[in-house]
Every structure is written in structure tokens, then in C-alpha cells.
């Protein structure tokens, strides 16, 4: 056990103190809130802004909020936002070029990175952040803005007390229990005693914040209740990914008829890539002023579902929806392993819920698995 590991129990008052302790350290605190009938992540200063007493119903192409009676603060699964929008913003200025006669000058236009404290980061999301860390900081070139944001972030993780209808983190070994990569971790306890939170510290910074909270010591019953919460969630996953060597299965079946089948349904709308917490593709855009003396370059999220994405002079490499869906799914589940040493999917279910036609990647994998010419699960 590291010397910064500690546990304690706090009430909702303690949760408010936690937010204040983070604000006092000049973090922008970001947490779940209701906007436009969905739970999204936004800055907050008060626990009253949390979606207390709400839950969600999720299924392929379906998301609806519904009230819950127990007053839980975190009684829902993940919504359309993920933390990537804070660490890797959807739109960002990169630089400005100024032209003065024959001369060009480049000026850094990246804004100073904010310091965030994330409240309520689920296990799948911690894994997604670790995956993006490998993308943006794991090789020769580090993305300086991502790195600065990432290094400045304080993470309050959350053990899920409710699995969503499209969740399958358990079968991706990415949840529901948070294990590492947090400063503090909460488990909301509604049973066997009053409404309370078990808090664990996972870093020296976390331990320091925890020491400021009104708290009581943990009992055996608290720990048992917390364990039961996670176990219950683990058992109620809405989806499962087939248990097989998925990279081998997909890479051996790049011409499987199922790709044609899914292409009949997929709208190539790119929703799945926008909501996915690990999808990292971006493009750049230039704008210039009318006088022709300044030009700016911006970066924005892009998607492998767009026609331009693979454009080479003369036409796009991936013209068909079939090839784009195949690119997305084989990248996510197969070639990602070769590139970054892990799957690119953490089983959060967002791409299933927010697909307008409810395409479910676990189903697509299962269909290929069950009809793979090389036999069930014995690909390769």
C-alpha cells in the first residue's frame, strides 16, 4: 500500500466541501449536469448542479432521463460527453501566420491550458484517458497542449453504481471498478446506513484534499457496501463483447459479408466517433483575413466516416460506407492493439446509444464471430 492511500466516509456536505477545496486550489471543477435532456459534463461550483435524483435509460439509438426516488447524485451511466472534450478540445487555435511583404511570422495561438478538476470519472473513462495519453504523449511527438492539460488535471473518480443499458466495460476489462489513475475515488453508498460516499485517495494531492473534508473513519460495513455496489454493477452490464481474440477475428475477416450488411444501416454520420472517449482523429482548417496579411490555423475533431478523411488527389481512398465502418471498427478493436498496445474500446457504450440507427459494435463482432468462415472463435 502506498503511503498516500487512505479511505474515509463523507456525506453530501463533504461532497460540497470537496468541490470547494478544489475551487480554492483554483481548479475549474467539471462534473455531470443536465442539459437538453441529457447528462453532460460542464463546470460547476455546487452539488445542487449535479443531476441528483436522475437516472438514464440507454439502448441502441435510445437515451432518456428518468427520475429516481433515492436521491442518488451519481445514479446514471455515461452520457454523450466524455472528458476528452476538456483534455483535447473539439476546436482549438494552433497558430497565426502574419505576412509582411516577403516575410512570414508564426505566432503560437494556443490558449493557456486551464486546470481542471474532473468530478465523477468512471472506470471506463479513466481507461479512455490512459488510452489517449498513449496517443498524444506516448511517442516521439507529444501534443504540448494535451500534455499541459493532462498534467494539470485533478481526477475525482467514481465507482459506478448503475450500469447503463449499453455498457460493457466488464468484458473489456475496463470497469466498473476504478483501480488506478485518480487522485480521489468515490463510491456512492445508498444502502446499509445513511446516504454517504466512501472516499479513497490515490495520490499525494488527493490525500491532501481529503484531509480537509469533514469525514469519519471507514468501517467494515462501508467497505462491504462499496464492494457490493461494484459487484452489482458488474453483474448488470447491458451488453457484452464476445470473449475471443477480436483483433485476429476482425483482421482475418476484412472481406466478410457482414461489412456490407452494416453498411446498409450505417448513415456514415460520424456520431459514434464524436461520442467515443478514445477516438482522437482531427483535421486542420485555415482561415485568413480579408487584407491577406494574417492567416490562422485551427484544429478540430474529425472522423474516419467523412469522405474527405482519406482524400488523396483524385479521390478518397475509402469511398464506401462499408470501408469506413470497417476502418472505424477494425481500428478501434484490432489495429489499435498493434499501434498502442491495448484495444481502443473501453466498453462505455456511447457509440451504441448515440448511433441514430442503433448499430451495436458488440453485435457486429458477434455476427462476424458466429459466421466467420474460419469457424466460431477459432480465427487464426
Amino acid at each position, binding site marked *: 500500500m502506498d503511503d498516500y492511500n487512505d479511505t474515509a466516509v463523507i456525506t453530501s456536505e463533504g461532497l460540497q466541501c470537496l468541490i470547494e477545496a478544489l475551487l480554492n486550489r483554483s481548479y475549474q471543477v467539471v462534473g455531470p449536469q443536465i442539459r437538453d435532456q441529457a447528462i453532460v459534463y460542464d463546470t460547476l461550483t455546487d452539488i445542487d448542479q449535479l443531476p441528483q435524483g436522475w437516472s438514464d435509460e440507454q439502448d441502441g439509438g435510445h437515451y432518456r432521463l428518468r427520475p429516481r426516488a433515492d436521491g442518488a447524485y451519481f445514479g446514471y451511466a455515461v452520457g454523450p460527453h466524455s472528458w476528452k472534450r476538456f483534455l483535447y478540445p473539439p476546436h482549438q487555435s494552433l497558430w497565426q501566420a502574419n505576412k509582411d511583404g516577403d516575410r512570414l511570422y*508564426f505566432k503560437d495561438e*494556443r490558449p493557456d491550458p486551464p486546470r481542471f478538476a474532473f468530478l465523477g470519472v468512471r472506470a471506463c473513462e479513466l481507461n479512455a484517458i490512459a488510452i489517449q495519453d498513449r496517443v*498524444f504523449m506516448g511517442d516521439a*511527438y507529444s501534443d*504540448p497542449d494535451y500534455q499541459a492539460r493532462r498534467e494539470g488535471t485533478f481526477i475525482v473518480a467514481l465507482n459506478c453504481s448503475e450500469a447503463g443499458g449499453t455498457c460493457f466495460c466488464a468484458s473489456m476489462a475496463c470497469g466498473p471498478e476504478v483501480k488506478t489513475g485518480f487522485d480521489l475515488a468515490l463510491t456512492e453508498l445508498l444502502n446499509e446506513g445513511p446516504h454517504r460516499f466512501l472516499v479513497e485517495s490515490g495520490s499525494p494531492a488527493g490525500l491532501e484534499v481529503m484531509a480537509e473534508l469533514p469525514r469519519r473513519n471507514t468501517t467494515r460495513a462501508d467497505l462491504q457496501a462499496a464492494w457490493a455496489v461494484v459487484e452489482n454493477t458488474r453483474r448488470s452490464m447491458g451488453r457484452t463483447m464476445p470473449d475471443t481474440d477480436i483483433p485476429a477475428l476482425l483482421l482475418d475477416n476484412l472481406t466478410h459479408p457482414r461489412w456490407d450488411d452494416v453498411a446498409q444501416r450505417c448513415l456514415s454520420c460520424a456520431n459514434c466517433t464524436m461520442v467515443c472517449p478514445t477516438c482522437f482523429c482531427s483535421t*486542420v482548417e485555415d482561415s485568413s483575413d480579408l487584407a491577406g496579411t494574417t492567416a490562422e490555423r485551427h484544429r478540430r475533431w*474529425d472522423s474516419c466516416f467523412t469522405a474527405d478523411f*482519406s482524400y*488523396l488527389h483524385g479521390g478518397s481512398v475509402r469511398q464506401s460506407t462499408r470501408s469506413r465502418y470497417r476502418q472505424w471498427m477494425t*481500428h478501434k478493436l484490432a489495429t489499435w492493439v498493434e499501434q498502442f498496445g491495448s484495444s481502443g474500446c473501453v466498453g462505455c457504450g456511447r457509440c451504441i446509444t448515440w448511433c441514430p440507427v442503433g448499430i451495436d459494435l458488440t453485435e457486429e463482432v458477434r455476427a462476424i464471430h458466429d459466421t466467420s468462415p474460419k469457424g466460431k472463435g477459432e480465427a487464426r
Partner: protein
Amino acid sequence: MPPPDFMMPMPVKVMQRRQELATTWTLDVETGPDELAAFTPGQFNMLYVFGVGEIPVSFSGDPAGRDRHCFTVRAVGPVSRALTELPIAASLGKRGPYGTGWPLAAAEGADLALIAGGLGLAPLRPVLYHVLRYRQRYGRITLLYGTRSPSDILFRDELDGWRRRQDLEVRVTVDHAGSEWPGQVGVVPALVPTLGFDASNTVAFLCGPEVMMRLTASALLDAGLAPAGIYLSMERNMKCALGHCGHCQFGGVFVCKDGPVLPYPRLRGLLSLQEL
């Protein structure tokens, strides 16, 4: 000090420009700081034209030169056209060098087959400069170069010079030509069997349109070359060249950082698939 932003270009000036073909120009540009002057043949830069955009372009000059970088650009769209129109003394943005180069050190002692199609001769020209400078380090060297028509032949004067050398075999072919063309007619892959190389000791560098490289690689394999002795320079859409934007993926390969020069075994199974 803020961390370096690898997406930010460096301003450099055009020192010289030469027309090579109807729409193809070679620009000599300043290298920028000395530590960025060196490159490995096969590597590329991202070149930015003010207000227009940024594209990947390979080094086409002598790797031993330290005072300038050469880029040979064919105008096919907005950015490449704007590059070819830059006058002497104009500034452009440059970042790089990026990507893998041709395995020149590993190929020492072997025979070399340099096989180019169209503009693909430009990224191979630095290889020619290098191997001719260190000629004794390599065995037999063959350059097989194909273009669509005689008017597409790049670096004609240099090709003539190379052809006159005793220590280099140069074969130029065109897909179509009128009767005034005295040379070879035929596509590159079809000429591979006529090269007569020692398959057990030949390393091949391929650069050109993807179909030409795919068919040439098959012809080389048929002629007995080991898959690991064949290298291809791949092209994919690129926005960052850093491994971050995702655009250049070809199967699991990031062409910008794992390539553009890739050994054939890495591409096996990928090249034959449509729309990958």
C-alpha cells in the same frame, strides 16, 4: 518556456525555382536552423503556403548538401499549385523532417534496384546522389523509371548523365509514345523480369503510384526477391505528420511515422485490399 509545438511551421525562403515539366517545379528553399538541415532520403516535410494550406512533400535533393532543401512539386490542387507558383525570395512554412527513410545503410553490400514511376523519381533522387557518392559500398545498381509518356520524364538532363555512367544501369520506359520516341515502351512491372538481377542479393526501393508499386512488388517476388528486401514509399492523406491526426492510417500503419518508406512484409495483405 512553453513546450514546443510541433504543428508550428518555420518560415523559410525560396532560394531558387526550376521548371521540370509542364506543371512540375523544383524549389530550393532554406533549410532553417542547421540542426534541421540533415535528412535521410525518403523522408518528407510539411510545406505550408500562407493562407492556402499545408501538404507533405518529399526531399528531392542531395542529402549531403547543407545549404538548401529541394522539393519537387507537381501542381494538382490548391496547395501544390501555390507552392509551384512561389517566386524566388517568397517565404513559406516548413516543418520536418518526418518519417522513415530508405534503408541505405542496411543495403550496403547488396545490389540495388531503384524503381520509380512518374513523380516517384523525386523521392528516390536523394538515394541516387547518396549511392553514387558512396558507389563502392553497393553492388550493381539499376534504376528502372517509367512514366506515362515521354513528356512526363522528370530530371531528363540528370538521367542522361546517369545513363552515361558505367557504374549505373538506367532503364527508362513509357506507357505510351509516338514513333518519335526511340526508347522502351511498356509498363514498369512488365520490365522487371528483364532486369536480370541477382535475386538473392538485391534490395529494391519502389516509389510511384500505388498500383504500380503493388504490381512491381509482385513481379519482384515472382523473380525471387525476398519480401523483406522490397521497400515501398506509401502515400496517404496527412494533416499532422506526428502520429496524432489519424488521417494517414493504412491498416495498423501510420504512414507518417511508421512510413512513408515501409518494408513489404509490413504491407502484405493490405495492398491487395480495396479501400483500406
